[in-house]
């Protein structure tokens, strides 16, 4: 078992067919989730009737710019940590040198990459943020009240690629080949999980905000931030 997990064969599988599989599930699943929501919303009397582009964008902008909404200003630490977390979570894998080299190897395309030290620091930030979120779930009464096992599972899914990537990069604790293989697998699991777990908030954030923004702005002449 150990030999298999650290072996080249498993590595080639993860790097080859499994990557394709993960990407197809991720894109296909996301498209399905979004399209089916857009389609099902037709029947609701109050959704498309009141959608408004200007107020959708106003709402989205106020919630993707740090401190642009009242609640973000009320919780400065949470705001900083959330933005750091999401920023690093998305940018690090996309602009990581090692990932880029793999892509270049396969398709001969490449883009700008992060300096290795920066990427390393960003990975560390993601891990620290996850630790913060986990602790917050346990100690903050209002969060604890609505926390269940699934919340920790989701947090782990998001954390795993970073933890294993970090271990592999620094050759820490476990065998490099093992860390690398688990790292790739973890990344693939995360991609697959996005459309089908509450990680789908990545997809629905935009749609819900657009609706709420339209309702508050265009219909009720009020603000939602």
């Amino acid at each position: 078992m150990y030999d298999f997990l650290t072996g080249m064969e498993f590595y080639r599988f993860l790097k080859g067919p499994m990557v394709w599989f993960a990407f197809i599930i991720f894109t296909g699943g996301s498209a399905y989730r979004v399209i089916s929501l857009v389609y099902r919303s037709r029947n609701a009397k109050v959704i498309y009737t009141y959608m408004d582009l200007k107020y959708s964008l106003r709402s989205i902008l106020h919630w993707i710019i740090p401190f642009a909404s009242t609640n973000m200003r009320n919780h400065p630490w949470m705001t900083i940590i959330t933005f750091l977390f999401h920023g690093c979570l998305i940018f690090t894998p996309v602009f990581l040198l090692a990932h880029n080299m793999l892509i270049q190897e396969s398709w001969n395309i490449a883009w700008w990459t992060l300096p290795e030290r920066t990427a390393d620091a960003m990975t560390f930030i993601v891990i620290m943020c996850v630790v913060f979120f986990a602790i917050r779930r346990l100690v903050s009464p209002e969060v604890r009240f609505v926390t269940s096992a699934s919340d920790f599972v989701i947090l782990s899914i998001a954390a795993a690629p970073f933890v294993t990537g970090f271990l592999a990069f620094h050759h820490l604790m476990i065998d490099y080949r093992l860390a690398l293989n688990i790292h790739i697998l973890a990344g693939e699991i995360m991609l697959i999980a996005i459309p089908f777990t509450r990680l789908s908030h990545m997809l629905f954030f935009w749609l819900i905000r657009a609706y709420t923004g339209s309702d508050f702005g265009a219909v009720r002449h009020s603000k939602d931030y």
Partner: protein
Amino acid sequence: MFKVERKPVADLGMDDTAKGLAPERIEKVMRWVLERESDARLRTYVETCIHCGLCSEACHYYLSYKRDPSYAPVSKVRQTLWDILGRKHPADGETVKKYARIAFAECNLCRRCSMYCPFGIDIAYLLALVRRICGLLNVAPQYLQDNTNSHIHTFTQSWVGQDDYVDTLQFLEEELRMDILNARIPLDKTGAEYMYTPHSHEVTFKTHLLANMARILNVAGIDWTMPSTDGWENTNQAMHAGYYETMGMIERKHFEAAFRLKVRRILAGECGHAFRAAVYDGTRWLGWKTPPVPYVSAIQFFYELVRDGRIRIARKIQEPVTVQDPCSFVRNRGLGEMLRYIIRATCEDFREVTPKLEHNYCCCAGGGVINYGPPWKFIRMEGGRIKVRQFRETGAKIVIAPCHSCHKTIEEMSDFYKLGLHVLFANELIVKTMEVPEAMRAVQQKNEGTGGV
């Protein structure tokens, strides 16, 4: 795990009706509401919510109950909808009663939490679905059910028949004529610019409010009328009980009265929920995008009168004044600045509240809670503690509360917590400060331009 504790409350409308409920019927109603009536928002909201708890501080219950986590908006969804959606066995009557208590007595459907959730999840929509389920099972505060029955039988919330209504209008007109020369409360005038819609309390125990409105309309020289038929009142309590069929019927009757009189606009009195039902919920239920007859709130109306000089402010109120932003008019209609314009024009010393405008807290009487009667009064007094603190901080002696629910509960809070606050409707403010031109005064020596109130 945190233990949720609540005072037991005896309410026949919930205790008795929940007792005999068959699980099959509960199941059927839940399916109907959650699978047929609800829309894509339900699942999307529930599945997107990341349980971050950032909506907690939006809720005045959470703040008033010393940050008790079970009062946070998301916690109320957890204790109701998550439970319902995740059920393996059908619920029993006791469980429905538990849901009803949360949906009816721990949320005012004020939508403040939507402004604090990073996704903008509409918790009020979710809890209104729970109310709908409970309502269809007749598990709702008894007083609220009584209001709904009254709507069905008399088309008003408090058993005021059409005869009493017309009688009162005629009496009020006569009385007004002692002050204002040839004052009229024109009934059934076709083609008028405005049809005034009062709260039914304005023809029972708060008649001075109707008289005030008539006085302002006469002094400003507005072309207005009131219907002599049913449909004159639309303080839609059925909306809060989840009796949407009745809610629709009330609004239809109301708009029909306006169609019949061919008025150009409806002038809404100072009732947040009547306004909300007419402009949003009832109108949408009937299939209109916006009200079929333009709907003008009293706040906007007074603002325009003062701005355009159609009435003149003769004297200003000197005592410190503050404001309650009714959710239905401010967070859900953006009339906060107009309200402040009126107050600044009529009061010398206006003390702003924090938070203000659309961020202001609900008074804890909204969503029908004001109408649940004596068994539930403590909910409003306790849930309103944050409101009390807010008013105390302003040091004001007068609160302008242009909504019947807000008004009543703030008066009660003032008694309960010995705040010594005087609560005024916007129309009281106008009548207290407005000039009545010399030529309009009926009895000079008796009337120094004030009267009413």
